[in-house]
């Protein structure tokens, strides 16, 4: 009992730090990557001054995210003259919390046996016994279903935000957001079913183990990878699909009437969602926390060579591998955001219903037939 509380407390603290930290870093990556892509220098003015000295740490503008956060918190919380008080306050939380919740079922490391970190026979080793925990906040059997269910709640936040602001632009943005996210949720779910059929489980941890034994999901299910990635970026409402908030038409879409940290929460949830989508893509298609040939006892190379590593090293390697993969996929998403122009609304709906959905259905049929054939 105490062991469970301790281990999961550490997991929750780590995951919150991971999500918020990586989201903040991605705001920096977004600025810098777009700048380097466009032959610019990028944000580089914010600095931390070491107290009592004149040493200014600029660090390539890494602290701009902190300056933004501080600005958001200190700004006036301006509200429209007439608005639905309850829904208006609730909406940012409904947008941000489900995004954080999704990560609860994502495994960010393998099985960990804390007793093996300490000297055998020491008090700490005795305390943990020989129990092992999956590095996952909630090891649900219905992991993938939880992901789909909770990420669906996020739509409510955008709809409430647009509806409660009592503004036509917000209303239009919310209507667009609702129809877009529901459309792409269908395609995303259908693309994921073929993944489920392939792996034979909806438990994300077992999916990763399946990939470790057989092959990465991107090799087995390349079409599902592309479909899921597209639908997930559309769910996140970022640039090729940012019709709910497109600045040229709708001022700022569903959060036009939001100011200060309430707007910051919408923006932050967007960046957290980049991390979460990357984590899901990594878990489902890129082998999760695993590295090739890395087993629980160290590297076992195909030629028969082995390289034994301690349990702590293996655990750290797995966590690092997961973080690195998430970072690379996130950078890829940002690259897409700065490369593609925005779709027209009819093109968006055509892509969702006429291309992604039939392709996902066809992929499912082929997957079902092939796995029935093979098994």
């Amino acid at each position, binding site marked *: 009992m105490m062991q469970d509380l301790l281990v999961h407390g550490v997991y929750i603290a780590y995951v919150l730090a991971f999500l918020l930290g990586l989201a903040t870093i991605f705001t920096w990556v977004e600025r810098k*990557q777009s*700048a*380097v*892509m*466009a*032959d*610019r*220098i990028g944000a*580089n003015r914010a600095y931390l001054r070491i107290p009592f000295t004149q040493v200014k740490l600029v660090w390539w503008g890494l602290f701009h995210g902190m300056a933004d956060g501080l600005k958001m918190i200190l700004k006036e919380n301006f509200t429209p003259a007439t608005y639905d008080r309850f829904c208006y306050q609730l909406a940012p939380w409904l947008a941000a919390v489900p995004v954080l919740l999704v990560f609860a079922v994502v495994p960010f490391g393998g099985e960990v046996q804390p007793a093996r970190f300490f000297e055998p026979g020491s008090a700490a080793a005795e305390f943990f016994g020989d129990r092992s925990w999956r590095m996952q906040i909630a090891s649900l059997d219905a992991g993938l279903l939880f992901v789909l269910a909770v990420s669906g709640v996020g739509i409510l936040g955008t709809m409430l935000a647009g509806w409660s602001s009592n503004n036509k632009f917000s209303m239009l943005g919310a209507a667009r957001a609702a129809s877009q996210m529901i459309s792409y949720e269908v395609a995303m779910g259908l693309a994921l079913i073929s993944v489920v059929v392939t792996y034979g489980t909806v438990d994300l941890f077992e999916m990763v183990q399946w990939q470790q034994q057989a092959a990465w999901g991107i090799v087995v299910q390349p079409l599902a990878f*592309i479909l899921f990635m597209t639908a997930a970026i559309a769910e996140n409402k970022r640039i090729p699909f940012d019709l709910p908030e497109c600045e040229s038409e709708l001022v700022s879409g569903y959060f036009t009437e939001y100011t200060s940290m309430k707007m910051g929460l919408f923006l932050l949830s967007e960046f957290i969602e980049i991390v979460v989508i990357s984590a899901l893509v990594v878990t489902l298609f890129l082998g999760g926390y695993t590295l090739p040939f890395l087993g629980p006892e160290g590297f076992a190379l195909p030629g028969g060579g082995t390289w034994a590593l301690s349990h702590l090293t293996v655990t750290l390697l797995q966590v690092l591998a997961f973080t690195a993969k998430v970072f690379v996929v996130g950078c890829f998403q940002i*690259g*897409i955001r*700065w*490369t*593609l122009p925005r779709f027209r609304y009819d093109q968006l709906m055509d892509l969702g219903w006429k291309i992604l959905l039939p392709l996902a259905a066809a992929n499912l049929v082929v997957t079902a037939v092939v796995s029935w054939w093979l098994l």
Partner: protein
Amino acid sequence: MTGRTVPTKPKKQYWNEPRLGLWERVYLLEIVRGLSITGGVFFRNMWKWITGRKGALTAYYPEETRPDYSPNNRGRHVLTQRGDGKVQCVACNLCATVCPAYCIEIEATADFDEPAHPKSPTRFEIDYSRCIFCGFCVEACPEDAIRMVKDTPDLPGFDRDDMWGRKDLLMNWHPLTDPRKRYPPAPAVRDEEHRP
């Protein structure tokens, strides 16, 4: 089947109507092409940054200014000088009048010992926090007393008072040292007829 047939207007054919081939229609391949272009630029520039070179076309402005401003660039103002180093300006206030940003302030004085050029400014200041660099002052000047050179004024600062271009900034240029814009020779004969 029956009913009015609405005459449909034939669709206008544009000379530059985009035609998508099969390659473009499969949008995914074009996405890959676009990503390879942006990614190529990204990695090329990153390689430059990593190897200690500059991977950007823009300048790190106040610390670094671009050397390749056009010689015609309307940058900082200068007050031209007469041969003896005194200011050419006669404090007629035409530039201050024409200035759309109202950023020129002139205070005049008179020196009657010099009958050819009795009036001159004691104070000639340009508020660069308001100047829009339109060049109207240069156009308006009847004496060719104010010009614009290509380098930018040292603008950025935390105090608006530092953004005033005072006489010491405006006078640190002598026409004889500018090879491109020579001091114009005085017209030999004044055209008296066109005087109002």
